[in-house]
């Protein structure tokens, strides 16, 4: 893991390469380094980190920070397999314009993971070759992992509520 100082050095290099507005901040929490970036700069940032040795995109995550704004988040977990070193790249997008450049052209492994983030959270990855739902049926409405999505599923017939669903199984 980069330590807190190492993280600051990485952030400094990213700022030098892509401008001050590319990196919004850093977080070193429980020995885990994370760098917050501007959504539009994700491709360049990930490319720079790949040149530093973080060549393996381990996973792409979606998050919902409801009720904070910007609400939706995407995290990229990067791994340096020579140094056994990890770093998290985080970005946040608002709900009314949830667009992030897709990194699938550079990291083919992100293909299905970006589709899943789109399916579950509704983040739109621009430049993705085939942005369709991956888990839910294609005619499904809504993004079920958002925090404001209703929890409840189907009513279930048990002995105690049988009178409430008289024609349940028909």
């Amino acid at each position, binding site marked *: 893991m980069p330590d807190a100082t190492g993280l600051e050095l990485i952030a400094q290099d990213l700022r030098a390469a892509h401008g001050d507005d590319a990196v919004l901040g850093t977080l070193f929490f429980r020995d885990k380094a994370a760098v917050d970036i501007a959504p539009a700069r994700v491709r360049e940032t990930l490319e720079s980190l790949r040149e530093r040795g973080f060549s393996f995109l381990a996973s792409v995550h979606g998050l919902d920070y409801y009720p904070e704004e910007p609400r939706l988040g995407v995290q990229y977990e990067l791994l340096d397999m020579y140094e056994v070193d990890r770093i998290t790249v985080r970005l946040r997008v608002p709900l009314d314009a949830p667009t992030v450049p897709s990194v699938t052209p550079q990291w083919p492994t992100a293909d299905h993971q970006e589709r899943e983030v789109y399916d579950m959270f509704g983040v739109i990855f621009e430049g993705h070759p085939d942005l369709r739902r991956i*888990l*839910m*049926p294609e005619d*499904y409405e809504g993004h*079920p992992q958002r925090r404001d*999505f209703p*929890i*409840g*599923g*189907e009513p*279930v*017939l*048990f002995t105690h509520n049988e009178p409430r669903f008289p024609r*349940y*199984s*028909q």
Partner: protein
Amino acid sequence: MEVTRRQLGAGGMEEFRSRQLTARQMLQGDLEGPALDQHVEDSILTTTLDRAANWARANAMFPATFGLACCAIEMMSIVGARVDVARFGGEAFRASPRQADLLILSGRISIKMAPVVRRIYDQMIEPRWAIAMGACSSSMGVFNNYAIVPADKFMPVDVHVPGCPPRPEALMHGILRLRAMILAKPDLSWRTRYGGRGTEEFIESELAIDPVAGHAVGISGGGRMGTSA
């Protein structure tokens, strides 16, 4: 009615031998009169065709080879030596729904999988039965959320086996309950069992072809599936 128990014949083997000889005489046409009456009375069991058919069905169920989730592992183990489903003629898992008459829903059914399950059930031939195995396919279990539907919502289920997952013994108990159900009841088609007699299923579709025009060119009608009973 008074029930009495009597010893058969003088000794087991002799009795058996004499019945064998009588049967041979009857086949040769040598048996006549009261001896023939007695032989027929001793060797014929009367029943109804329905009961005989149910007896045959209940003791030779053909489950579909169809596993959905972790319950499927428990389902596989009922074929093993410990709870040997072969004792009740259910060990032949068929790889095609066309050859199966029992669908064991072993696991959670997601809303994406539900149409597939329903199609497999529709492809099975009558008479057919379904067992919802485990908490998920009966009541969605721990997954009461956007992803899972209970089996009763889209197909008729005969037996629900609770558990998460149910032990093989529990599934075996469910199969035996189903067997008892088949043996006890006269066979009704599923339309009668689930109040659907005189109904039919079809997909609302803009592609529906006029059934009369369809017959002229050999197309069976529209987006219709299933037939009316």
